[in-house]
């Protein structure tokens, strides 16, 4: 099989083109040793296409560039597909000039060529092809224009020229002078009104007084969309149908087989699948919102607006978005750390994302607050959210100065022109993000569900009720750990363990173990202080299995284990402090 390398600047439609050419024949992974995404796909069973990370140059020492360079040198590349933004050729061709030095057959794809007339730009493609001495094809990846020609060239076994000239550029200045001399011959520009639209929007979006209210408003709408308007209602319908109709139906179907077998199939396997499926609506709605913000150009502005604040704790403005998303769910939060500049920033941000109180934890806060702090629910919940944020910043500072010690990366972010995202692109980007999660994280969540089912239904002598199961034995065994924190009962320990499945499961487990009405049962085992200590513990302790699975998928075993361990220790230490200092003041 022949091999093609797809390269280009960030945000020029590389992913869209990759999807068109390879369809569903894709594999996503990481380049060895770094957290840079590696995507490969197959075009018409004959050409393997490798989607390399978006870069501006080959020689400015980032991981992305090193990966790309190594691949072009050692990866048996037969052809280079260089995709560029047709309306911004000058900067885009800088990378092209560097790619030409690899002396491979090369096609230059001028993307977004359809938008040139409205921008008042005219390009003489023939002339450009002559001057650059490589094949040039104008395309529009999002509209499918010019794609047939690209496919034809690919099928014709790379029948395209190699520029054998040795340019011997001594520095960046010479490369740019050369590019500009070519563009002078091939490109004409008339200033149009179009350009000023983005400028006008920026005047409002970046306005001193309006910037923050707009930012808050936009994220508020995104969360409402996910948790009130679309995602959550769909999830409720789905889980209702699943748990109240489908699972009892399956039980009915299997009523003639042995009870433990029926339970394994229905409660273990099907229940496990269900716990992944009910995640669908929320994750996809949140991803849809994120894709919209990214494609429209707003995300870059949000990073710019928050950079000054984030810099104080040693993070870049780009870390703001993953943290914000973390308030909805840590899974997409961690996945969106990919957009950060350096590997260390990505890892650091991913480690603190779970400290943002996600939606699932809110249900635990709400129940406990209503029982133990009636009248002060809002205050208590706000304190918990704030505690999470403050601790995240402290941890960021701590890690930044210890395990992630390094020079500061420069904050450089391109502000693309605003545009209304196309529905097709939105759908593709949303699915792209969702697919990775369900494929990889899904299997982990599924196996963990089956394991918990097993532990809560069996002991060493066979089948058992949950209070005699292995899970309760484990709960009893680890209870001494929680005694100093004020909530050391075996029921709580079991709830903390099952909470690893998803934090809202804590409530359900307590319901089963304390037998019924928690409003009556909980005050018998908790004081307001130990309840608060418990909430702090729930806020901070080891994230749920979906998050750990995502962490493993994105950053590997070590990071996942580290995340599990450090958050458990952190939760224990802070809860211990809260409970024991609190005891000096209240009974």
């Amino acid at each position, binding site marked *: 099989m022949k091999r093609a390398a797809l390269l280009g600047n960030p945000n020029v439609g590389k992913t869209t083109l990759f999807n068109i050419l390879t369809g569903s024949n894709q594999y996503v992974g990481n380049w060895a040793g770094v957290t840079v995404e590696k995507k490969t796909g197959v075009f018409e069973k004959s050409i393997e296409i490798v989607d390399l990370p978006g870069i501006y*140059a080959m*020689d400015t020492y980032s991981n992305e560039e090193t990966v790309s360079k190594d691949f072009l040198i050692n990866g048996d590349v037969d052809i280079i597909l260089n995709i560029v933004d047709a309306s911004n050729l000058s900067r885009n061709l800088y990378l092209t000039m560097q790619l030409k030095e690899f002396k491979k057959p090369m096609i230059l794809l001028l993307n977004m060529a359809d938008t040139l007339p409205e921008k008042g730009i005219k390009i003489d493609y023939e002339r450009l092809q002559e001057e650059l001495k490589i094949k040039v094809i104008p395309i529009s990846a999002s509209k499918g224009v010019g794609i047939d020609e690209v496919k034809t060239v690919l099928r014709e076994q790379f029948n395209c020229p190699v520029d054998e000239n040795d340019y011997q550029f001594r520095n960046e*200045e010479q490369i740019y002078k050369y590019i500009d001399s070519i563009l002078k011959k091939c490109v004409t520009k008339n200033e149009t009104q179009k350009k000023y639209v983005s400028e006008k929007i920026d005047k409002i979006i*970046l306005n*001193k007084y309006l910037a*923050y209210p707009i930012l808050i408003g936009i994220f508020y709408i995104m969360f409402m969309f996910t948790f009130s308007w679309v995602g959550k209602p769909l999830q409720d319908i789905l889980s209702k149908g699943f748990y109240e109709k489908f699972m009892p139906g399956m039980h009915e179907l299997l009523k003639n087989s042995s009870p433990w077998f029926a339970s394994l199939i229905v409660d273990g396997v099907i229940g496990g699948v269900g716990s992944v499926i009910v995640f669908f609506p929320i994750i996809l709605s949140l991803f849809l919102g994120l894709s919209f913000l990214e494609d429209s150009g707003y995300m870059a502005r949000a990073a710019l607006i928050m950079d000054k604040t984030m810099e104080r704790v040693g993070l870049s403005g780009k870390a703001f978005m993953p943290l914000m998303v973390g308030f909805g769910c840590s899974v997409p939060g961690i996945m969106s750390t990919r957009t950060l500049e350096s590997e260390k920033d990505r890892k650091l941000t991913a480690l603190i994302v779970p400290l943002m109180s996600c939606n699932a934890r809110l249900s635990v806060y709400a129940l406990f607050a209503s029982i133990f702090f009636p009248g002060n629910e809002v205050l208590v919940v706000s304190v918990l959210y704030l505690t999470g944020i403050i601790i995240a910043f402290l941890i960021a500072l701590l890690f930044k100065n210890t395990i992630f010690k390094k020079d500061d990366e420069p904050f*450089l*972010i*391109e*502000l693309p022109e605003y545009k209304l995202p196309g529905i097709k692109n939105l759908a593709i980007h949303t699915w792209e993000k969702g697919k990775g999660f369900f494929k990889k994280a899904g299997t982990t969540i599924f196996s963990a569900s089956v394991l918990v089912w097993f532990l809560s239904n069996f002991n060493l002598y066979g089948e058992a009720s949950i209070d005699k199961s292995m899970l309760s034995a484990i709960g009893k065994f680890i209870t001494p750990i929680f005694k100093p924190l004020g909530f050391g009962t075996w029921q709580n320990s079991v709830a903390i363990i099952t909470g690893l499945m998803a934090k809202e499961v804590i409530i359900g487990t307590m319901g089963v173990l304390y037998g019924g009405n928690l409003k009556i049962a909980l005050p018998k085992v908790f004081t307001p202080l130990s309840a608060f200590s418990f909430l702090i513990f729930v806020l901070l302790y080891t994230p749920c299995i979906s998050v750990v699975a995502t962490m493993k998928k994105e950053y590997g075993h070590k990071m996942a284990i580290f995340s599990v361990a450090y958050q458990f220790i952190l939760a224990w230490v802070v809860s211990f402090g809260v409970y024991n200092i609190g005891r000096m003041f209240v009974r």
Partner: protein
Amino acid sequence: MSVCDLKTGKLAYVEKVVGNDKLAKRLMALGFINGGEVKVKGAAPLGDPIVLNIKGYDIAIRKKDAANIRIREA
């Protein structure tokens, strides 16, 4: 003078990029080369980072990094 001293909306020419190698190389690759037209388009609400226009596109950069971009006024 550096690009930080430039008033918003005013045009200037890049002279050179100074300071640490890695940053300078990256900025030059992005188009900050001798003779390049540069403009300050605006800033974040707190005044930093600033938004520069170079080679026809907008890029945000922190002031402490932008201070390495030396310019002469048009």
